[in-house]
């Protein structure tokens, strides 16, 4: 036995035994499930299996491009330009959640998902988002005067994470929060959607049952179950289905950013288990996916996503960004 292992054994008075385990890490989910019958392991899907690593089909590229354009459209908040994040289920091409920065004011939300408690009104139409709408919208085609082209995008939270300290105070009625970057809010929205669509899931109730059988002295599993049941009632009232087959967090989902996320947002996206990250414009100030840090390359993390930069024609941002250059 290696010395450091022996030390652990002694420290924690472990009793050792010999058992059979797999020699190689599982490369598929099926292999992993088999493997766990011998000995429980954790599964890290190999990144080279991620769709898109070896290229995109024309159909997929179009879809990626359209979701990115949706993010660019969302990047306009009131009169200013901010970062936006759109979480997408690529298997159904459905928007799961979306948001833009809410650093300065949540009140100026154009998007009603901000304070929406339940997602029954989440526009299902967004999954049929039609790119031709962008071209048809006359506002978006407005060309910007050249002297206004040099925007510093000072309201883009991921570009200026410390910017909240320097902004002049708004009216006291204004809502603001230094950490509500687009990704943080989008993740919050996706979690709210998940709680609403899937109020009870097999894992939860199974575990609650288990804990109950162990007669936990706190009784909290029961309380927890009660809360779940209440949530389920709420959702049933809203006519939503209760399905136990749902992804764990955002496993398998994509996220689209207009700007490369800052390190806080990039790590938030790791925590929420996003599979692929797309961004349009690099973030030289605090970009965490290549510009300043390269989080996707940190080996110690328990989850890794693939990162893609979507090259948008520059005039898309200009027409989007300068549609309303000043406060109205």
């Amino acid at each position, binding site marked *: 036995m290696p010395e450091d292992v022996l030390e652990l054994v002694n420290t924690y008075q472990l009793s050792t035994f010999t058992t059979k385990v797999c020699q190689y890490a599982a490369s598929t989910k099926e292999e992993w499930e088999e493997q766990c019958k011998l000995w429980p392991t954790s599964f890290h899907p190999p990144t080279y299996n991620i769709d898109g690593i070896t290229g995109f089909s024309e159909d997929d590229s179009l879809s990626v491009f359209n979701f990115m354009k949706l993010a660019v459209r969302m990047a306009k908040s009131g009169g200013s330009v901010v970062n936006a994040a759109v979480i997408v289920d690529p298997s159904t091409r459905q928007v799961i959640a979306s948001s833009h920065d809410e650093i300065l004011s949540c009140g100026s939300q154009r998007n009603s998902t901000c304070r929406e408690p339940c997602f029954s009104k989440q526009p299902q139409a967004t999954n049929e988002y039609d790119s031709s709408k962008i071209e048809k919208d006359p506002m978006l085609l407005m060309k910007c005067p050249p002297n206004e082209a040099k925007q510093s995008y000072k309201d883009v939270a991921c570009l200026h994470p410390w910017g909240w300290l320097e902004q002049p105070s708004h009216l006291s009625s204004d809502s603001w*929060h230094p950490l509500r970057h687009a990704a943080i809010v989008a993740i919050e929205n996706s979690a709210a959607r998940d709680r609403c669509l899937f109020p009870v899931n097999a894992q939860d109730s199974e575990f609650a049952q288990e804990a109950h059988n162990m007669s936990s002295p706190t009784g909290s599993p029961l309380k927890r179950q009660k809360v779940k049941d209440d949530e389920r009632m709420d959702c049933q009232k809203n006519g939503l289905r209760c399905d136990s087959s749902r992804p764990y967090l955002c496993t398998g989902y994509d996220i689209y950013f207009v700007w490369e996320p800052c390190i806080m947002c990039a790590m938030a996206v790791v925590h*929420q288990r996003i599979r692929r990250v797309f961004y349009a414009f690099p973030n030289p*100030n605090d970009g965490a996916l290549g510009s300043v840090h390269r989080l996707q390359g940190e080996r110690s993390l328990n989850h890794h996503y693939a990162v893609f930069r979507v090259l948008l024609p520059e005039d898309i941002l200009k027409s989007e960004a300068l549609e309303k250059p000043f406060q109205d």
Partner: protein
Amino acid sequence: MASFVEETVPETETVAYMKLALEQAKLALDSLEVPVGCVIIEDQRVISSGRNRTTETRNATRHAEMEAIDVLLEQWKKDGLPREEVALKFSKCTLYVTCEPCIMCAAALSIIGIKEVYYGCANDKFGGCGSILSLHTNSSGKLMMSGGISRKEEFKCTGGIMASEAINLLRSFYEQGNPNAPKPHRTPMPRA
């Protein structure tokens, strides 16, 4: 608080605050959450506390630190404090957290401009205060921007306060099984 009454060895302030953070972590454990807890201190007063709520919220970003920060922001906004004053208050706050802040939380603490952080055990997988990245110092990242007004905020960071207590809580959580982990997890093999 009982520990204050029967203490035989005078404990330092740091240990006393970390005990409060550990109590928050225990609350998390009772709620089947990964047991990490924290408190925020201003002028030797506990002004906020938080614990991990990732399972309950299904939002993996709801770490103890984020919870505790949100409590303060809500309170100070209710009190009508302008942003400058909120920033000033954060710059006088000290955080005690049972586990090294992750990369996300370390970045958040820097963004709000916290003064100081004490943590229990190191976070070998996600640690943002030395283990994986060092976001509490100015060594990484660019300071100067076009316009030159943005800055990075440093905070002092000390680890290893009651680390074994923090680890023991985490261990007891993983021994009972993480309800939030993907299936299958550690269940004893059924025997026919």
